[in-house]
């Protein structure tokens, strides 16, 4: 079995300004590992979108990233309100973000579709009132 490198981050839900810090750090870590720029970009954009989502909708959460020889796995877990209708949430343009978030340049209903677009695998597990766990994989 190949060695796994793992990284853990707590995503602060109170501060929109600091959202994205974990993704910036992962980008640096992957760069140090010599992973290709295209793969790094896909991982960091997908994770950044997920991080922003956790801050907007779920009051923060946790992000775990593991890197093996052939893929990067990102698991984003929150204890937020959950997603009642995942199919609807996956539609481009569908958004439940408040206007205040739109004025900050986000909440256009592109986050989840974008995460799927940039990754090779994405799974959403969500229970209303309990939280959401998103698993994404990017092949190296």
């Amino acid at each position, binding site marked *: 079995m190949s060695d796994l490198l793992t990284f853990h981050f707590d995503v602060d839900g109170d501060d*929109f*300004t*600091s*959202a*994205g810090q974990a*993704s*910036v750090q992962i*980008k640096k870590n992957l760069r140090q590992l010599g992973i290709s*720029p295209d793969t790094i*970009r896909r991982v*960091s*954009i997908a994770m*950044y*979108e997920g991080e*922003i989502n956790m801050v907007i909708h779920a009051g923060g959460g946790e992000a775990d990233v593991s890197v093996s020889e052939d893929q990067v796995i990102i698991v984003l877990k929150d204890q937020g309100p959950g997603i009642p209708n995942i199919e609807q949430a996956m539609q*481009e343009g569908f958004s439940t973000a408040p206007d205040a978030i739109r004025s*900050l*340049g*986000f*909440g*256009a*209903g*592109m*986050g989840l*579709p*974008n995460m799927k*677009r940039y990754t090779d695998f994405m799974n959403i597990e969500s229970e209303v009132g309990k939280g959401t766990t998103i698993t994404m994989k990017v092949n190296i």
Partner: protein
Amino acid sequence: MKISMIKELLEADIVCGEENLGNHVYSACGSDMMSDVLAFVKDQAVLLTGLVNSQVIRTAEMMDMVCVVLVRSKLPTPEMIELAKESGIVLLSSKKRMYDACGILYTNGLVGNKLRS
């Protein structure tokens, strides 16, 4: 086009990143919606925007962009300047409006790019 040329064409002030003004860029995009930048932009090196918050710089960093131009005389927050310095992004501020700024750069040869399908 050199970033210094963008500064000249847009009569922009340099906020930070002066040491990188000599870098060449080949395409640009303009948007106030970071969600759209993350969704549709591919390989553009310059972001023109009227939006002012730290996520503008983070978005540019995620997209491997090297220059951010704030239009309509917007001034960056201290956090934006700090983040731009950390990631080596040239931050410019121009009096031009978005439409004019994009048009000036486009007609001088700095094009957009194909949309990601």
